[in-house]
């Protein structure tokens, strides 16, 4: 096929995949995939490995009684396990010295006893390690969500929510899996290896020679392996993330994919990312085989040494055959746990990577705190010398930074309690910025915002959050039952209050028709609600939350062919009695407001009630006549 860019080189290509190709080659002409894999900059902060372990250590110290108990139990279990080869060696000694049958039975009893001890302690140890890990993880995931919920919407707009999502879900999941299986296993194995080494060293000083030769080799092999695999794993993770995202967005966008006939392009996009991931995965496997070959050196040396040293121990040192048996059993029972330890290194590595990402969020993002204790007195809003800009501030020292881009020119504005104002203007005129500043969700770069006389820079956080709400075009129905969704706004609301709120936004009738009414599952996996119904729910939440200030940022806008009127009525109903700011798409909404602000290029160009602006014959009057079609 002529489109095949690189002819696969013979020899390396198996199953049609060139397993040694560089990731860039695999991605080929897929510029999007290249860019996705090239995304070096983590968007949210990542902690160092050291800081992450320090964080976990702090949490372990907080739970110190349990930590101590775990340490003791695990050490005891490992000691019991390390006792076993000695007891078996003891049986050989009995045979060697022609002991009695009763001695053999006694030795057998000891083995059962040691086994029972080991069983009990390892059961307890496993449970303790796992629960300790789970407790720490639960604390961490809750803190991650705490921080994520306070992330400024503006950050999210720039970065997208992908990174935040992977922190709160994927990283937590990967760590939890590790805590379930790998970590208890690893810790028990680790202690077992340690105890076995101690057991060997105390068995005979001759065996110390063996340990001195072999242990550093194992350590060196582990370091060799980790150094090489860590960067591969990092890339693989990025490729998997991009792959999942590509697939998800193609599935969610199937109507568009089919309309534009890009199903093959999207399949190829997922396919190249998938190929990158498996090629990288295979690279790790090749490293595993190499490491096993390297490990064959210390293993074989120790087997040969134990026999030769055993000869010396017996015939030079006067030790018993039983001692040599114990030593060789130690050795045989060590090879497998060592392998096990090393094979679980990748799970540990990936869990450690997730840990650094979680700790990064917890330690680098400060939890939202109240800047002061002022409480809003009424529904009035004042802006004093407020302006806003993106990019570097004028006083910023860095010369290479992007210049400041003003998006809202300095403005003073007083909104009386209960007043309704409408913002009108073209896209990019600054309507949404002004609306977010009025709602208090965006802190302007310059100037003061007061809600009911309280300066937002010195106000009580929860009081301010309760005081004003903004409903935008982005609708979201939370998973759970419909009642749960509504109770987000007021947890203690009674069923009657919920119905009352639904009644006010004209949603009660369709909710009643749903199979389980308020108790129906909604959200991602539940009943799919239309955009209009979801927006009605959003308005019902506002009724329950009952804020003094309500900002409707194009809340009724994206309503195709139906329901615009229903929503508009609901919005008016909800707005009654509150200070309301409407970012209006349709001039019919603006026309009923007490005051209209016409915006262009970040400033207010006309201001006044509908009739006055129409009579004035300015910008608004022109818009109105074009829209209403009364004269053209």
């Amino acid at each position, binding site marked *: 096929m002529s489109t095949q860019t690189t002819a696969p080189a013979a020899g390396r290509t198996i199953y049609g*995949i060139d397993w040694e190709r560089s990731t860039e080659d695999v991605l080929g002409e897929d*510029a999007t995939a290249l860019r996705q894999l090239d995304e070096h900059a983590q968007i949210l902060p990542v902690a160092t490995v050291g800081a992450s372990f320090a964080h976990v250590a702090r949490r372990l110290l907080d739970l110190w009684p349990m930590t101590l108990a775990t340490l003791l139990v695990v050490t005891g279990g490992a000691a019991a396990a390390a006792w076993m080869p000695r007891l078996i060696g003891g049986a050989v000694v009995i045979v060697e010295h022609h*002991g009695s049958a009763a001695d*053999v039975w006694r*030795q*057998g009893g000891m083995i*059962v006893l040691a*086994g029972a001890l*080991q*069983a009990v302690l390892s059961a307890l140890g496993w*449970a303790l390690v*796992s629960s300790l890990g*789970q407790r720490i993880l639960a604390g961490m995931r809750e803190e991650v969500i705490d921080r994520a919920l*306070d992330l400024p919407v503006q950050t999210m707009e720039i970065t997208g*929510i992908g990174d935040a*999502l992977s922190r709160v879900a994927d990283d937590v999941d990967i760590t939890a899996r590790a805590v*379930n299986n790998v970590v*208890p296993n690893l810790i028990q194995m680790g202690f077992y290896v340690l105890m076995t080494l101690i057991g060997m060293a105390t068995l005979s000083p001759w065996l110390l020679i063996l340990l001195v030769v072999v242990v550093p080799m194992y350590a060196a092999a582990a370091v060799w392996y980790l150094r090489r695999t860590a960067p591969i794993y990092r890339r693989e993770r990025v490729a998997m993330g991009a792959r999942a*995202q590509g697939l998800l967005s193609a599935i969610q966008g*199937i*109507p*568009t994919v*089919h*309309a534009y*006939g890009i199903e093959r392009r999207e*399949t190829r996009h*997922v396919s190249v990312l998938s190929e990158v991931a*498996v090629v990288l995965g295979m690279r790790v*496997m090749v490293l595993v085989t190499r490491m*096993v070959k390297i490990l064959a050196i210390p293993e074989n040396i120790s087997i*040969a040494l134990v*026999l*030769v040293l055993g*000869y010396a121990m017996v015939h030079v040192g006067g030790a018993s055959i039983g001692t040599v048996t114990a030593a*060789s059993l130690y050795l*045989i029972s060590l090879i497998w746990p060592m392998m096990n330890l090393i094979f679980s290194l990748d799970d540990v590595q990936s869990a450690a990577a997730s840990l650094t990402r979680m700790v990064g969020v917890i330690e680098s993002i400060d939890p939202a705190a109240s800047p002061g204790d002022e409480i809003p007195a009424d529904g009035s809003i004042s802006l004093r010398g407020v302006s806003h800009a993106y990019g570097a501030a004028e006083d910023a020292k860095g010369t290479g930074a992007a210049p400041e881009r003003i998006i809202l020119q300095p403005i003073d504005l007083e909104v009386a309690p209960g007043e309704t104002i409408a913002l*009108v203007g073209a*896209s*990019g005129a600054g309507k*949404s910025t002004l609306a977010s500043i009025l709602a208090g*969700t965006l802190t302007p770069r310059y100037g003061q915002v007061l809600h009911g006389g309280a300066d937002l820079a010195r106000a009580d956080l*929860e009081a301010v*959050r309760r*005081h004003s709400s*903004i409903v*935008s075009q982005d609708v979201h129905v939370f998973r759970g039952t419909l009642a749960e969704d509504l109770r987000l*706004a007021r*947890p203690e609301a009674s069923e009657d209050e919920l119905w009352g709120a639904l009644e006010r936004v004209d949603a009660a009738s369709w909710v009643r028709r749903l199979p389980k009414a308020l108790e129906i599952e909604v959200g*991602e*996996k539940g009943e799919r609600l239309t955009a209009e119904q979801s927006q009605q729910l959003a308005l019902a939440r506002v009724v329950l*939350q009952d804020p003094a200030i309500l900002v409707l940022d*194009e809340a009724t806008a*994206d*309503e*195709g*062919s139906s329901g615009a009127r229903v929503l508009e009525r609901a919005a008016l109903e909800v707005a009654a009695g509150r200070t309301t700011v409407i970012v*209006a798409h349709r001039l*019919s909404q603006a026309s009923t407001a007490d005051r209209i602000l016409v915006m262009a290029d970040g400033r207010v160009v006309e201001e006044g009630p509908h009739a006055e602006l129409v009579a004035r014959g300015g910008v608004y009057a022109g818009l109105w006549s*074009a829209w209403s*079609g009364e004269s053209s």
Partner: protein
Amino acid sequence: MPDSPAPSSPAPAPPAAGAPAGRPPVSVMRSIVRDHRRQLPWILLGSFAVEAIDMAVPILMGLVIDAGIVHRSLSITILGALGIVALRLVSTFSWAAMFRASQRARMYQRHRLRVAVTGAVLDPRSNTVDRPAGEILSIATSDADKASDVMDMLPWAVPAGAAVLAASIWLAILDPWLGLATLIGIVVMVLVVRVITPALSARYDAQQSKAADAAATATDLVHGLRVLQGLGVQSRARAQYRRRSRSALDAALVNARFSGVSSGLTTLVTAVMMAAVVIIAAQRALIGELTLGTLIAVVGVARSNMGMLQGLSGLPVWWASMSTSARRVRDLLADLGRTIDDPELSIAHLRSARDDRGEGGAPVGRRPGTGGLRISGSPGTALEGAEIAVADGSILAIACADGADAEEVLDAVRTSSTGLARADVLLEPHVVDLFDGSLRTQLATRAPAGRALDGSDDSWADAALHAAGAEDLLRILPEGYDTRILDRGANLSGGQRQRIALARAVASDAPVLVLHDPTTAVDAVTEQRIAEALTAARSEDDRATLLITRAPALLRQADQVVFVAGGEIAASGTHQDLMEREDYREMVRR
């Protein structure tokens, strides 16, 4: 070349659910094994050798201790040690070769299953399935991975099982009581596993579902972050997550206890069995029926045997999760009306296949006009019996007073456009979907060949943005056309997304362009600008444009407006004419 019908979200005639006509489902697991039927014998042969040597090492060590150390022969000790090392080297190298081959097969299968599922899901000729996107994603990723683990399991489980069997037979030959003890050990181990495993996996499933619930809540809250912050209820959302997280923790703690008990029980069985072997073998050695070396070998083999058995005891659970995953992949493909062995879903095919742009594979230049679009309404719908022609060079609008009528009109447009080549019609969906890529890539999604994608000549993109009233984006976006637009336009506002989608549609320069409510998310000022620029851009002699809208700004620009009300065509004419009608005026003023 089969010209596939224009796709539609509600399939025109969906086949009976769960009963895809034609091909029976193909077992994914069997397909995987069949794919590697030539490599598998070699892989298995290699791993048989590996396991045999591993089991033989303790025996050989016992013999060397006996012949070398007990009988005081340094040369036998050294030669024996070297022999064992040589054997182990053979084992290590054959393991490495076997492991590489089996892992490569496993990786390849992961890739193959994933690409096949992706290709099948996105192919418009597949049946539409009503499954959440998240579920399909997890089938294409985690289930594809797990099902492919069969290539990881087979080369290890079969020889390891054989080695355990061989070792037990050796013990039984040495002494029937040893054989019996080993047999009892195996039976008890299997019983313990059979009893514990189901209880354990039930607990584990419970824990997983609680954890999944907490994770789903977390992602849900982040998705709804804007709404939460808008409402100012972060602290309540936090409390809600904490509840879910705590209940996941409780389940995890129960699971931890059970896992501990299971690990303890297997340890206990191993110890008792070791004690039995030691007692039996030592008694025999005491009366001189076994040499000291054989005693050591027996003990060593019994220990390795129990270790392997413990490893093998995890097999049923592993197998269960593997075959469940394979079944899930198979069922999804079956629902889509495809099978895993479909040559069109092979990697080789999907890697080289290009999207259908009319002529062969690669995109072609400007497509000539098609003579317009004829829409004929199907019986029982709003357009019943009607024939609406969207002629080349014209802009026609259909205004529906009722949303349900608009859907019927859209269905009629979809069915009517099947007569045209897929590359000649573009029906831009109302719900906007943008895919990760730069602004330029977005606009070029279906642009004719010859459009510069390297930024050397962006005039075509300028024209498209202008037609969509979106020139302001170039000022707002930090890197202009090179700015990365995230998936689903996550870094844009609703209005910006909608205008990019519109610009993308204009840039396709499709001979027939159908737009459904293209300006609902933009303000009145911008809408007016779009109406003028859009109609100017589409006013070419061989281009036909259909607008399904109620926006007066757009309606005014159309050459003709068809007004649908009360389930039928109520009138048609220019916007100005129709404004005479009370019901029409009522509709456009909203």
